[in-house]
């Protein structure tokens, strides 16, 4: 091959969630993908490059998959890579502690005639549990290269690099199943005429198991007549084996694995319950889990994000750095050079790109979102979220979601836009719609939360009303949605990874990556928003819009000035809350008005970015319906709350 020196060879990383694929990716490429301790967080495929002995490689990190037969969206994404890319090697990363459980997928990769290297990762933990693994014997039994590793400490990295660069394709050793199963596989395999990335054997098995993607592929690649024959044959087999085909295949694979593992693993001593296991069981027990959750919310969200992020950091950046050191010279420069009135307004005016856009984004929003992401990443890295998921599953079932939805919902408290993107990992369309709607309606993002906590913290009763009302509405609307939306209620199952101490580097990398993507996404919108508002102000359109809105705003008992905050609110949710902040400081709002405004604004239509993601993820029809529903809900709730508060004189 003449061009191997120039073109990059592809290396695909596959494996169960939580086995350290991303760590291997980072070690090989030197780049940072987010490493998480939550099954199913990376939906995207990360790509990076590395060079070994003068040959360049493109490394692809896929979402976690449990078998070659995809069930969830992430698995489908991962499998698609194997079907479409032409890899030089496929690196299957497995957890040494769970060899027996993960080896069946290695068999499937071998069976598919893919060029597999097996990385047995997390050897240190396995040793701690008293497991001794004979990797040479495993390599011999499997007939593929096997590398032992502790990737987070870069042990085994050099061996892996060497194995990749020296990899030569050898014929994979076939594993034999029970005779009757083999006969059926043969029957299908002989009917296949086209050429596929996966071996005929693997393709046949997937066809028998009615894999949708493979069926589609066959219908395109095969001739009319052979497709017909294949369909008939697979139908006949699926029916004949309707009782237990999948089970039989799984059991056969396990039988082969047992043979392969014969003599490979020796267990020396019984393990003892470690502190992390105790802590883990406290987190999963509702009696101790609920106080732990409250503690996490109090320390993480209220104290750290609310107190430190939204308080100390914002005060420092906004009140000190910007007010004293950054703004004056800029305003000074602007006064000197931007002589045209419109230009001056555009940059440092009331809605100027600088004053409104950059100042808010950097000084007000970034510290809050940043501290939130730090807490979130820290919790994610320890493995707390799966435990939280199983704790809230019963409650979430009542609102039509499963415990799995805990990630998008919690992430929503950081950024609803990102959270809406993550609803993709939910399994049914119904769940995705409910989660998207609840995020749009009742989950305030961290920036909004920070500003609202700041606004209401001086009025503890107002804060209480706000919290109770939003919690009630979240549950109530979720409950109604679960009743109204057709479809089966979701089923919950999840692997619970071991708790671990957060790795400082992981946490930092995750936080920074999230902050970076937030910033990349947010800053243009802030600028865009301030330009639109500036144009609105200059042309008088803004006044018209505010004029149009003001009857509604007045109907819910708020001064007309609040309208501006609502109009801002659409450009960024937190933006609107920050607008309230200004009104509050100038003493325009009573406590009742403040509460009503805060509630309405929290409920009100999500920001532009979230709306765009909703359109993309849920489609125009559903997104528009949610949009309209949320708008009506926000103002009618505001109206109701205002009447209620005035009538009861609760906050008077």
């Amino acid at each position, binding site marked *: 091959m003449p061009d191997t020196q120039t073109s990059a060879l592809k290396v695909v990383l596959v494996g169960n969630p939580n086995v350290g694929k991303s760590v291997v990716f980072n070690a090989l490429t030197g780049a940072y993908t987010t490493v998480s301790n939550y099954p199913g967080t990376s939906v995207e495929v990360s790509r990076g490059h590395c060079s070994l002995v003068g040959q360049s490689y493109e490394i692809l990190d896929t979402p976690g998959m*449990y*078998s070659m*037969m995809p*069930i*969830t969206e992430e698995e489908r994404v991962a499998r698609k890579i194997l079907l479409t890319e032409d890899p030089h090697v496929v690196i299957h990363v497995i957890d040494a*502690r*769970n060899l*027996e*459980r*993960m080896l*069946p*997928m290695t068999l499937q990769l071998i069976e598919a005639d893919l060029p597999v290297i097996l990385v047995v990762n997390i050897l240190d933990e396995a040793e701690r*549990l008293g497991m001794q693994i004979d990797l040479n014997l495993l390599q011999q039994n499997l007939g593929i290269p096997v590398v032992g590793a502790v990737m987070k400490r870069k042990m085994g990295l050099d061996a892996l690099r060497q194995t990749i660069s020296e990899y030569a394709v050898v014929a994979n050793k076939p594993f034999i199943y029970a005779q009757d199963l083999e006969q059926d596989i043969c029957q299908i395999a002989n009917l296949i005429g086209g050429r596929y990335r996966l071996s005929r054997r693997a393709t046949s098995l997937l066809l028998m198991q009615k894999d949708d993607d493979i069926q589609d592929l066959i219908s395109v690649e095969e001739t009319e007549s052979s497709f017909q024959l294949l369909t008939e044959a697979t139908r006949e087999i699926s029916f004949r084996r309707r009782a237990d085909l*999948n*089970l039989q295949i*799984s*059991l056969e694979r*396990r039988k082969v694995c047992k043979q392969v593992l014969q003599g490979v693993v020796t267990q020396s001593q019984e393990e003892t319950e470690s502190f992390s296991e105790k802590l883990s*069981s406290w987190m*999963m*027990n*509702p009696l101790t889990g609920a106080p732990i959750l409250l503690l996490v919310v109090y320390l993480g969200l209220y104290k750290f994000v609310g107190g430190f992020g939204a308080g100390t950091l914002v005060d420092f950046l906004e009140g000190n750095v910007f007010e004293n050191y950054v703004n004056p010279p800029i305003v000074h420069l602007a006064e000197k050079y931007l002589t045209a009135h419109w230009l001056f307004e555009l940059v440092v005016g009331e809605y100027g790109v600088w004053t409104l856009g950059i100042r808010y984004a950097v000084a007000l929003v970034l510290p809050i979102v940043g501290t939130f992401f730090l807490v979130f990443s820290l919790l994610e890295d320890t493995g707390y979220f*799966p435990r939280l*998921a*199983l*704790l*809230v*599953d*019963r409650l979430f*079932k009542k609102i039509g979601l*499963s*415990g799995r939805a805990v990630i998008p919902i919690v992430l929503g408290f950081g950024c609803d836009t990102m959270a809406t993107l993550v609803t993709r990992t939910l399994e049914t369309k119904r769940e995705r719609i409910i989660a998207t709607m609840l995020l749009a309606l009742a989950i305030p993002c961290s920036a909004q939360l920070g500003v609202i906590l700041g606004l209401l913290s001086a009025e503890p009763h107002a804060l209480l009303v706000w919290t109770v009302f939003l919690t009630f509405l979240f549950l109530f609307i979720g409950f109604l949605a679960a009743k109204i939306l057709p479809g089966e209620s979701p*089923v*919950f*199952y*999840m*692997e*619970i990874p*071991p708790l671990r101490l957060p790795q400082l580097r992981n946490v930092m990398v995750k936080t920074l990556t999230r902050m970076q993507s937030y910033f990349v996404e947010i800053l243009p919108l802030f600028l865009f928003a301030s330009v639109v508002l500036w144009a609105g102000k200059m042309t008088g359109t803004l006044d018209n819009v505010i004029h149009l809105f003001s009857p509604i705003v007045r109907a819910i008992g708020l001064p007309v000035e609040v309208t501006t905050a609502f109009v801002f609110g659409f450009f960024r949710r937190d933006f609107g809350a920050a607008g309230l902040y200004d009104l509050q400081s100038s003493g325009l709002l009573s406590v009742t008005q403040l509460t009503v405004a805060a509630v309405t604004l929290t409920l009100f239509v999500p920001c532009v970015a979230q709306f765009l993601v909703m359109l993309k993820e849920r489609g125009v029809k559903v997104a528009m319906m949610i949009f309209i529903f949320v708008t009506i809900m926000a103002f009618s709730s505001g109206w109701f709350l205002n009447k209620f508060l005035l009538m009861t004189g609760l906050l008077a």
Partner: protein
Amino acid sequence: MARLSQNAEEILESLWVMTVEGDNVGCLLTSLNLNRDTEELVELIQRSYVEIKGDRVYLRREGRPDAQMTVRRHRLAERLTMDILGISGDEGNEQACEFEHLLRQGVDTKLCTLLNHPTTCPHGNPIPPGECCIKARQQGEPGIVALTELKSGESGEIAYLSASDDKKMQKLMSMGVLPGSQLLLVQKFPSYIFKVGQSQFAVDDTLAREIHVRRPV
């Protein structure tokens, strides 16, 4: 003696649930939608199964065995409709109400044995044990039970997965939850948490009911 009518059985059932399992002392006639001359009530009074004092009706000792067996039949019927026939929700409840009256003359024993002597109904209420259950326990049969029947800390071998939702079962299988594996139930509430090998899994009760475990002898 002639068989109790269906409505009389329903009355016994309600009385059992409210006064034996619940903490009511007798039941208001009105709360059972009955009056003194309701035919079925008269039938029960004639058998001295119940008595009326004031505006309340009480279950007498004579009525307890039949009441208990009626409740047992009802809950066995629920297991049948919901677990085996896979009819859930209101429909399942309705069907169970129809089925329970067919479970007589040993049919309940056969069903109970087929279901492997379940101890709770799908809603988690206890199924009063019948003679077959007691005999099975005395013989020390290991028995195959759903994960929901195990106690926390109990372990066993996964016997089979009943596949009402194929995709979910495949998922469990690919995660390593396979017949033949040893399973340890760690916790039952709010979710079922179990250990297979070195890995822990959480499932809700819908799935837990479909994982069947062979208890060690």
